[in-house]
């Protein structure tokens, strides 16, 4: 178990119109990147509830990517602006609580930035690999496992 290479589990919350399409472009451009990241699609970054980020950590995510359209490019005009404010406040709150915001990558990736998406994923994966598994949070989330009495 110990000598197994740590493969971080990373969830990406992305908007449909820019980053999801950008990641599609990464695919059509056949740019390779690490397979640790799995994308959950949203209509807009404005839809991404901060609670989902917490739930992701609670379910064992080691890292999170949140990405959407660049400012002024939102398909819905202002969803990403609202999201940005929410992230600014949420991020500072998490930091104050000692939750590692270094494990959350926020980014703007447009539908044309297939290469940026690949780079972003790779950066995030290598950063999280350096940080290691998010055991602090894991311990709290799996509080009952200490008492598990298998057999």
């Amino acid at each position, binding site marked *: 178990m110990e000598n197994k290479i740590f493969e971080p589990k990373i969830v990406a919350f992305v908007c449909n119109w820019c980053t999801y399409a950008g990641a599609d472009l990464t695919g059509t451009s056949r740019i390779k990147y690490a397979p640790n990241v799995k994308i959950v699609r949203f209509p807009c970054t404005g839809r991404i509830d901060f609670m989902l980020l917490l739930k992701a950590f609670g379910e064992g995510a080691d890292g999170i990517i949140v990405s959407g359209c660049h400012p002024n490019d939102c398909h819905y005009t202002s969803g990403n602006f609202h999201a940005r404010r929410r992230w600014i406040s949420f991020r500072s709150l998490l930091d104050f609580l000692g939750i590692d915001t270094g494990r959350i990558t926020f980014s703007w990736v447009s539908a044309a930035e297939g290469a940026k998406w690949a780079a972003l994923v790779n950066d995030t994966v290598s950063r999280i690999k350096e940080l290691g598994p998010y055991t602090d949070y894991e311990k709290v989330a799996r509080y*009952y496992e200490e*008492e598990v009495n298998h057999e």
Partner: protein
Amino acid sequence: MIESYLLQSSSLTKLFNKLIETRHIYAPVKKGMVTSFNRVESLEEVAKDYIQTTISAKSILFLRNEILFHYKQENGDVKIMEPDLQRIPELVIWGCRPCDAKSFKSLHSVFNWDYKDIIYSSREARSAIISFSCNQADEYCFCTSAGSGPGHTEGSDILLTKLKSGDYLAEILTEKGQLIRDMIPAIFETPSSESKEDNLARIPIVFDTAGLKQKLEQAWNSELWITQSMRCLGCGACAFVCPSCSCFDIQDEKHGKEGVRSRCWDSCGFSLFTRHTSGHNPRETQAERWRQRIMHKFSYLPDQQGFTGCTGCGRCSRACPADMNIREHLAALINDSTSPENRVA
């Protein structure tokens, strides 16, 4: 079967150190304004000067969150893994007040009434309660009006009363108490003639317990339920600090294929406590919920179990963010004349 001994002040440490060799000790620990029962390693950690802990000793036997069982879904079936109750350590609740100790009686009967709750019972069976009599009280205390008192022995295995000399009067009250005495018999000396009563806090009786139940039942339609509960915020602070409140919720939590079903504290003061999924709520208003809390403790439990669900510790009043004072409100209800008619025949 009370046996009394003298325990020199220096022997207290010996007793503690003896017990900790084989048992987990939970004792009041002070942190800021809050004193609560924590697992301790040495007597130094134990709070010296406290009238009452913020959370009662019930939290040690009736856990805030108790895992009832684990489960795992596999191959279209479910595997249920029950907690291994044999792994519950032997424990000592040290520094309990007599009112808390008495409340274990009520918890015991609720959890053993008809259906025996072996999780609670196993913890109870493995724990010994070493209480300390109260030599001080505050204006929230009303144990003497609730069938308890500063030197009440019910529920404790050993009751220690600090004497003016600094030594302790040790009353061995149960077999578990005797067992502890036998672990370190040397320190249990012949008692002095000093009276226990003289070393207890004076807590005036504010109302008469006798007839309390009947008077409350008569007050069923009283306006007081409304006026008293108007400032109630509907939180669960009173129930959660209460040593006798035992209402709980059962909840599932699952990660992937595995999960737990657990039991966690709940409060009749919460508006959702009795709410049906249809939206209908048998106790729709805070006044009805306040009445439930009082009636449960002082009427229903006496009917079912033969004793009240309140030992007069006063915690609920101390904890209430809106200063709902149970002692004061009970006194008012007893003297209530707003509703002569009696709904409950």
